[in-house]
């Protein structure tokens, strides 16, 4: 395993709401190795996006607060930086690609001037040079006729192209870590593959590390070298992608795998896809013991009393489950 670029230890991010304290992130441990992709996977509401926003320190406060934990980027704890220092990390060291390319560009500026603006924010260059670099980036992300696009407004280009522009913008300051929060969810299936390929190619070309957030295990399989599985605000399993797909340990991960249809195995009526029974526990109530206990078919007494620790099973494979102690 290469050296860690980003390491999150025991992160807890809570939100104060009218219904009580929402424990959106309640124990996240993960490592993004340098030059590789970590896939963060989990169902809706499990805390994936809140984890990403916590890394960027973009949790709206109030009502949100990072109450505990460390986010180490190259040996620096991001949670200890001042807001001013953090602003230089955002965009420069860590860049983010959002889910909604349709609305993530400012409608009143041309593509070129928006990109140049971002470039000048982090690099000491003049306007002409910034425009040149924008052009270079548009070329890199595979936009045809980039000179023309520079002078167009966001509404004049398609969703896929907008996502390419946003990727170009995110990468224009040569960040070390790129956080992509469901970057293809809003796009057509054909465009999805193109964008994922592009993110992968740029990772290799520019030597960035990626934190890819998705609920799609198929995307993880294509893209990631490492995987963190999240459930109810916690990372329940962390492993290399190969290890995880060959030997999933946590019952939740196993359940996720079984709920994917396989193209080579016909789904016959007597052998339907398996869904995980039950519901995710509410993030407002503190669960005693393991948060997966009510849905787990291997549950035993200890699971209901004591919360499992995040245990290393072998080098790099960690799981939060009493079955594997």
């Amino acid at each position: 395993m290469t050296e860690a670029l980003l390491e999150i230890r025991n992160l807890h991010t809570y939100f104060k709401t009218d219904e009580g304290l929402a424990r959106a992130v309640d124990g996240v441990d993960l490592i993004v190795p340098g030059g590789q992709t970590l896939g963060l996977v989990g169902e809706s509401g499990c805390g994936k996006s809140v984890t990403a926003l916590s890394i960027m320190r973009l949790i709206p406060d109030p009502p949100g607060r990072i109450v505990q934990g460390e986010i180490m980027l190259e040996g620096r704890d991001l949670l200890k930086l001042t807001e001013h220092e953090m602003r230089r990390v955002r965009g420069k060291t860590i860049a983010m690609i959002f889910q909604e390319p349709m609305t993530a560009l400012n409608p009143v500026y041309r593509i070129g001037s928006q990109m140049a603006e971002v470039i000048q924010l982090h690099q000491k260059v003049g306007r002409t040079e910034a425009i040149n670099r924008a052009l270079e980036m548009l070329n890199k992300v595979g936009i045809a006729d980039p000179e023309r696009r520079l002078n167009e407004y966001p509404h004049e280009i398609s969703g896929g192209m907008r996502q390419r522009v946003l990727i170009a913008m995110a990468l224009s300051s040569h960040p070390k870590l790129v956080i992509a929060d469901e970057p293809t969810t809003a796009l057509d299936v054909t465009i999805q593959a193109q964008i994922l390929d592009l993110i992968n190619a740029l990772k290799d070309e520019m030597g960035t590390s990626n934190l890819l957030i998705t609920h799609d295990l198929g995307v993880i399989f294509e893209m990631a070298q490492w995987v963190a599985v999240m459930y109810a605000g916690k990372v329940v399993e962390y492993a290399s992608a190969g290890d995880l797909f060959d030997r999933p340990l946590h019952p939740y991960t196993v359940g996720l795998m079984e709920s994917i249809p396989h193209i080579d195995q016909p789904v016959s009526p007597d052998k339907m896809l398996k869904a995980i029974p039950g519901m995710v526990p509410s993030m407002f109530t503190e669960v005693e013991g393991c948060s997966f206990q009510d849905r787990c078919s291997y549950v035993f007494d200890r699971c209901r009393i004591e919360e499992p620790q995040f245990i290393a099973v072998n080098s790099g494979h960690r799981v939060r489950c009493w079955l594997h102690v």
Partner: protein
Amino acid sequence: MREMEAEQKTRTDTDSLRYKFKLFIKNRLALVGLIILAVVFVLVAFGPTLSPYDAFGTDFAVKLQSPSSAHPLGTDNYGRDVLSRIFSGARHTLLAAVISVVIGLVLGAPLGVISGYFGGKVDLISMRGVDILLSFPPLILAMAIVSGLGPSLLNAAVAIGISYIPIFARVARSRAVQVKRTDYVQSAIALGSSRARIILTDVLPNSMTPLIVQATIYTGYGILWVAALSFIGLGAKLPTPEWGLMISEGRQYIITGEWWMTVFPGLFIMLGVIGFTLIGDGIREVTNPRLRLK
């Protein structure tokens, strides 16, 4: 393929300025507003040149004459030509109205944008201040301010401008609250933009449309209020050919039948107000696709 290109083209066209202008012209009322405004602006620019007589030239030989071919809108109690006074006075009334809107916009919009963007205590305090200002009828507030500053046309404009601040602040605030939640503001924050930069490059430009609509409509009301303040002696001073002041001068002659001294300046005030209001509505309709659908 060709169909796709055509579709691409129409989609692009719906947002182009030329298309919006076409749509604007198609709206009959907006077109009327535009024509009225063109006339008013010609008067502002060339009023004295277009006037057939000197606006200040008294001639008691022809005083209080009803409209005739020599004096199309009649003459006043000093024998001055009413048409010439209306033409020459356009710039006083209009300029005062524009100054008031500029003051309201320049002070109100930033206040509203900052209040809406930061929210919390900043918002609470500034918006309660705005509420207090709003609780006075604007004209009463303007009257109070002019009495403090001393009556003059400029002070009347300043006073109306101050009473406009809460109106523009409200509009700007509500827009800023919307814009700050947009993905492009979130993405600007994630790219490391400072708050000042986001306000200047994202929030303010994207709040302009409703502010422009509001500014146009309130320029119209400005004409009315400038005239009103002049009418009650808190605006332009004699013998300035300000429209409101002309009505004030002519009001004692209504009873004796010399109606042209008051009716014609009044008609021009009305025209000005209607012109700006129609244009404001026209812009609103063009920029808001939901209104366009009907």
